């Protein structure tokens, strides 16, 4: 067997960014969890002795912490998913004017195809909007290299830089050449210079002019950057591609001429002109919005793009194959074969959407809410899954924190039903507090439920200000939802155990029938995180089961309807006992106790 050189390791795109940050002498790494960006900071944490890491309460805070570090001279990264940049947009737009001292790269991960997101926004717009450079890697090696490049650009041109990831680059692993850590290049120490760091109108006007001068310099740098390159091949078709789309194009059309764009904005105009002149037909392949394509046309260059390439959802080799065939790419290899047809045997399979896990504490709250005729404004987290049948207890989702504020808006608008807002613990600390303050301040009457499972569950169990631990596992304060409720001025606050259905329903009834605002904290730790079963495994006593299907209303994946019988999948059951509590004939009994000893 051949051996792998120790300097070549398999890293995901996210892990490669963390490695790149460590090697480049970054000393501050901040972020808020969000798929597909989360693992950047989780991997960075492993270098904790050299690099301070923190989960901040939200992306705005994370960005500002990184900005402060940069102004004191440190190299910093901040990580978030695409919608997180909306939260951090305020500091982003003005840091563009103020500029950076130590390199600052915002690693922002888009989610084409919305694998785990509520929208498909294209972060490249933000770069043009904020007038800052954006780099887009196409594999893990580039993710690491571009992180370093971004820090250098940031320091040379005094600008924050965005490193745009997408799900397929973040979550694909490929070999990366790794090196040693460089010594941090600058001593920390803020240099007082108000005309540089204080954008009051007097000085901001000068900064505004400097931003345009910087953009011209960045454009020249983009033209000569190694991140952008022409790979000449067959000149009958030239393809401009960026990010993961470059890899698909190379896979499908190895003969084509390709302009690979890794430094997306400011656009490398000279390179685009040179490439366009050298090919007969020009195609732009980019995921999501036709940003490159529109720019190429604005240069007076004819090209094809969105007329052939899908602009909705994620690209893939299978989706791009007919596009390249239509664009006249030489039909060889994969392009020569006809696509596989969907087999009839796979046409009628039952859908398998994600669901709340067996013994999830959220299930108790959703079941209890089913007893009331109410509107539930939901939020972002595992509990978003409460929208699916049979629970169907989420009526709206907008963005983090909106579960609270929208409940207030509906109630003030005169919604005839009671409005109940629901957010998770991490979401509450992220952006729920101001909404709760609004309800108290403006004399609202919504009932707000914070489903506190003691972790940021959906993204893979990250710490947050309420867990009592930092990202490094150090003990720290454990902020409580109830304390914030009291501080906001909410008078009615209750805490329930969501596995105790009777008490939960009674508390919710009091809150929902009240004409005052209520804060109900539903507290039980996520069993997937604690890895401790809530209780013993159950089974169905077939003689007692009358097949009334009351238990099926829980939507528990461990309760299965098979061959006209209800049974418990004992390998899935987490012992929460909710099935036994809702069963009118006591048919759920403890399983026989056989255990598979290690």
């Amino acid at each position, binding site marked *: *067997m*051949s*051996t*792998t050189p120790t300097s070549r390791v*398999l890293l*995901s795109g996210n892990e490669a960014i963390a490695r790149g940050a460590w090697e480049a002498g970054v000393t501050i790494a901040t972020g808020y969890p969000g*798929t*597909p960006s989360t693992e950047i900071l989780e991997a960075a944490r492993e270098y904790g002795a050299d690099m301070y890491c923190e989960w901040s309460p939200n992306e705005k805070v994370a960005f500002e912490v990184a900005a402060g570090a940069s102004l004191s001279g440190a190299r910093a990264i901040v990580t978030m998913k695409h919608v997180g940049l909306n939260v951090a947009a305020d500091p982003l737009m003005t840091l563009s004017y103020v500029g950076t001292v130590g390199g600052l790269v915002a690693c922002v991960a888009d989610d084409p195809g919305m*694998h*785990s997101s509520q929208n498909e926004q294209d972060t490249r717009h933000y770069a043009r909007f904020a007038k800052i450079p954006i780099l887009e890697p196409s*594999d893990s090696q580039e993710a690491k290299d571009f992180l370093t490049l971004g820090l250098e650009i940031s320091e040379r041109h005094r600008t924050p830089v965005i490193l745009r990831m997408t799900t*397929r680059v973040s*979550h*694909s*692993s*490929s*070999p990366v050449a790794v090196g040693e850590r460089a010594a941090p290049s600058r001593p920390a120490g803020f240099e007082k210079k108000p005309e540089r760091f204080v954008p009051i109108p007097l000085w901001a006007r000068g900064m505004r002019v400097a931003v345009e001068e910087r953009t011209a310099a960045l454009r020249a740098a983009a033209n000569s950057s190694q991140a952008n390159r022409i790979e000449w091949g067959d000149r009958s078709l030239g393809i401009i591609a960026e990010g*993961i789309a470059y*890899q*698909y194009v*190379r*896979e499908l059309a*190895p003969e084509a001429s390709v302009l690979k764009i890794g430094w997306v904005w400011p656009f490398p105009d000279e390179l685009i002109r040179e490439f366009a002149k050298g090919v007969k037909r020009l195609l732009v392949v980019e995921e999501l919005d036709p940003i490159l394509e529109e720019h190429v046309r604005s240069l007076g260059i004819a090209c094809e793009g969105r007329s052939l390439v899908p602009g909705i959802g994620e690209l*893939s*080799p*299978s989706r791009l*194959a007919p596009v390249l065939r239509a664009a006249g790419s030489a039909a060889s*290899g*994969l392009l020569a*074969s006809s*696509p596989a047809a969907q*087999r009839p045997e796979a046409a009628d*399979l*039952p*859908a*398998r*959407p*994600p*669901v*709340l896990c067996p013994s999830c504490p959220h299930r108790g709250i959703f079941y209890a809410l089913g007893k009331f005729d109410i509107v539930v404004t939901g939020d972002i987290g*595992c509990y978003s*899954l409460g929208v*699916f*049948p*049979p629970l169907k207890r989420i009526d709206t989702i907008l963005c983090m924190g909106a579960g609270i504020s929208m409940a207030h808006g509906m109630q003030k608008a005169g919604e005839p039903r009671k409005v109940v807002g629901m957010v998770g613990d991490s979401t509450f600390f992220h952006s729920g507090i101001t909404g709760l303050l609004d309800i108290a301040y403006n004399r609202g009457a919504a009932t707000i439920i914070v489903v506190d499972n003691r972790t940021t569950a*959906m*993204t*893979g169990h990250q710490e947050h200000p309420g867990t009592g631990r930092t990202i490094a596992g150090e003990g720290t304060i454990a902020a409580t939802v109830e304390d914030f409720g009291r501080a906001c001025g909410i008078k009615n606050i209750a805490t329930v155990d969501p596995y105790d259905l009777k008490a939960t329903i009674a508390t919710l009834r009091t809150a929902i029938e009240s004409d005052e605002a209520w804060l109900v904290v539903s507290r039980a730790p996520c069993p997937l995180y604690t890895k401790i079963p809530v209780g013993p495994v159950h089974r169905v006593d077939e003689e007692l089961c009358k097949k009334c299907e009351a238990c*099926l209303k829980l*939507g*528990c*994946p461990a*309760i*299965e*309807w*098979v061959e006209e019988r209800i049974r418990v*999948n004992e*390998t899935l059951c987490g012992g929460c006992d909710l099935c036994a509590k809702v069963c009118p004939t006591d048919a759920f009994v403890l399983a026989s106790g056989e255990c*598979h000893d*290690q």
Partner: protein
Amino acid sequence: MTSEVMSVVMVGVGGQGILLATQITARAALLAGHDVKTNEVHGMAQRGGSVVAQVRYGPKVFSPLVPDGTARVLASLERIEALRFSHFLAPDGLAVVSDQAIIPVTVSSGQAAYPTDVEERLHRVFPKLVYVDAISIAEKLCDTRTANVILLGAMSTALSLPEECWREAIRQAVKPKFHDVNFRAFDEGKHLVESVA
């Protein structure tokens, strides 16, 4: 060059251990000196939904995504998930399917039906099929979590990676106290195919 790239697709239900199986396969390919790309599923899709993960290796790999109809192996930890993702498998590729059935909530809540003729369908769709009771074998090994590694052992017979690379990859991916049980699971999987063939 593309023709030399080997593609492996692993599917199942979120929480079954697809990610670990993907990582072991990718490490084995890297140890054998190949270029490697994987793609994995994180986030919402892991909560009990259909999960697909892929590994591609060869002299040079561009796309981490497997084009339809090109995978050498499709390994499935759940029986109908094999059908759902059958479009990835090359016509002469090997399907290794655990006979485990995990009933989706869409079935238990009456919105859809779980097909009753899964085994016949599998035989129709996959000319080269290894249909295994991975859970029973894993129970015999006293660790039901090794079902994924049993499948790895079975699918390794269709991939040209040296045995030692698989073992080293398992060593790197699981904690030392689970090395032995996973080695045994891998061997059980291999023997399954050899006894069928």
